């Protein structure tokens, strides 16, 4: 049986994880988005390590270490390095939906996530019962950030947040990957984020802006 104090600690970290997603939803400054993402990834690493300690899974310690290295340090650092400072210092003033509206919508998404997860959790599975709804909610909010922001950097952050959500949902199941595959997974995530940074710069060079929602030469 899981120690209730331990569960409470997990719950607090999970709640902070969800809060970080909401903070990214409302952060105007580009650099702020990336920093919040780094913070959220740190919480993911902590959660993975805690669950690893609880279940005695060495596998999850590796996941925690890789999250710390790739998602907390490398991706934010590389994005800051690839993307020009003038872009990162900018603030996004206009959202597709204003901030109160967005918060309301993400509240609905979180509620949806909690009810949907409740339906699929198997009885007696305490860890999944706690983490699956959180992961689901964060994934949905991340995808919502992608569609509700007009600028490239917050869109990328939204995608990365959605990734974090899925990884959190995978934590209680210990991924089910062969050990070495974790490296492959995090390698893919790292290269993907780096490519996004490179493309943000190329878009900027071509159009003098990173308002990607205005990219509409290609249609029909």
């Amino acid at each position, binding site marked *: 049986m899981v120690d209730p104090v331990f569960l409470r600690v997990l719950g607090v970290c999970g709640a902070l994880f969800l809060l970080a997603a909401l903070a990214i939803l409302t952060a105007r400054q580009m650099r702020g988005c990336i920093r919040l993402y780094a913070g959220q990834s740190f919480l993911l690493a902590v959660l993975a390590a805690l669950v690893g300690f609880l279940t005695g899974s060495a596998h999850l310690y590796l996941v925690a270490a890789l999250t710390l290295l790739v998602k907390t340090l490398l991706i934010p650092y590389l994005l800051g390095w690839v993307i020009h400072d003038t872009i990162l210092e900018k603030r996004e003033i206009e959202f597709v939906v204003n901030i109160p509206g967005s918060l309301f919508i993400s509240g609905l998404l979180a509620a949806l996530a909690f009810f949907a997860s409740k339906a*699929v959790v198997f009885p007696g599975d305490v860890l999944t019962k706690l983490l699956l709804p959180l992961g689901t909610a964060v994934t949905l909010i991340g995808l919502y950030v992608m569609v509700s922001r007009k600028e490239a950097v917050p869109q990328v952050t939204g995608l990365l947040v959605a990734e974090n959500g899925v990884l959190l949902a995978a934590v209680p199941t210990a991924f*089910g990957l062969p050990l070495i595959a974790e490296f492959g997974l995090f390698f893919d995530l790292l290269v993907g984020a780096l*490519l*996004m940074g490179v*493309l943000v710069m*190329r*878009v900027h060079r071509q159009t003098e802006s990173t308002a990607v929602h205005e990219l509409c030469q290609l249609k*029909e």
Partner: protein
Amino acid sequence: MSIPAMILVTPLVTAGLSLLAPNFAGPLTAAAQLLTLAFCGLLAQRVAAAGVSAAGWFYADAVSAFMLLTLSLVTCTAAFYSAGYLKAASGGAAGRARDLRRYYGQFNLFAFALLLTPLLSNLGLVWIALELTTLASVLLVGYENNARAVEAAWKYLIISTAGAVLGLWGTVLLYYAAAHGSVPYAGLDWPALSRLAGGFDPRVMKLVLLLVLIGYGTKAGLAPMHTWLPDAHGEAPSPVSALLSGAKTSVSFYVVLRFYFLVLATLGPLAQKFMLLFGLLSIVVAAAFILQQRDYKRLLAYSTVEHMGIAGIGTGFGTPLAIYGVLLHIFSHALTKSLLFYAAGNISLKYRTREITGVSGLLKNLPFTGAAFLAGVLAVTGLPPSGIFVSKFSILMAGFRTFPPAAVFLLVIVAVIFFGFLRSVNPMLFSRPAEPPPEAKISRWTAWAMAVSLIFVIGPGLFTPWPFARLLDSAVAVFLGR
């Protein structure tokens, strides 16, 4: 070294060599892909004899072997075509070393990732390999580095990665369902999952179905998540469009199939209906855009959406005949569409435009390319004798027995698309040449690529060599368990 390892090492080594000796990278890549094709043939032969070939990390059943043959044929012709295309695109000169490095380095990595995916049985590893195909091809899509190409690459990366996130989510839930199945199994190995799939919890599997169809369907180009596809296929250099359309969407659909048959074992008709829904939506969207298309490369791209839709519909029909049709369809479409993109590449080199109205007198100005284009268009719209005719016919026959309304609907849409295609292509081919188009040197390498593709476009419509037919039959048996 085992055969799967050889299949993978060849493109990897070639990628390295291309960086060292960019001026020889074209012929080198072509030779390497020919070698890979031979290895894939060897593996297919071994699988046909032994049923399954598993060595260490690698696993190949009849479906994998069939996919490997399809993919390596396309990457092989694309390598030959690239050698000619890049030369012609840089005005007959060898091209700048920097561009050649960039192109062939990524081309070979892309080929590596494509061939890796069917060689894995752990679905988590499959996810990694499939995502690698996207990452390796993003900068190839943006190769031209102008505003349109960058926009296409951006949309391609963002939408595909969003799809990958959903796909990963589905994979995690599948693992969760398997771990709590009637026979608990903690792993993602496909053969084991396939044995146990009947005992998974249907509520979880419903979510898996939705996430997998949307997630991996994004990469396969199923509507409504196809929006990246026409942009990427239109803006990429033509050999890359051929690879995206012939190989990338095929291998993504292969992954959809692997997941789908696990879900089918639990959910039955519900899964079939979902698959049909996505398939039907795809052909409707494709038909709407084909009818009003002004750009011939985007016309071909929407035709890819159509054919992925047809493969989805066939999968939904679900009888052995339908699955046979689907697999043959993936093969025939891969070869036919790559042929069409090769021809389209030569057309754009000659006429320097991608507007349908800017091209006239094609058969007179470029006789071989024009003839290949005509043959490809007739094949892709489903006229006999062609592989696509046989596969469409099989799918329709199966459909009339299982879901007659869907089959009738499919027939109508296919007719509409046939009309749309001929209306667009007819003036390109047969009208009188408006003015003599600028001289453009079309390399003989491209003719070879098209000639080889043409054999495999028409071949399966005339007769099916028995080793190929046997491989197809055992591939159907892998999915339907008979």
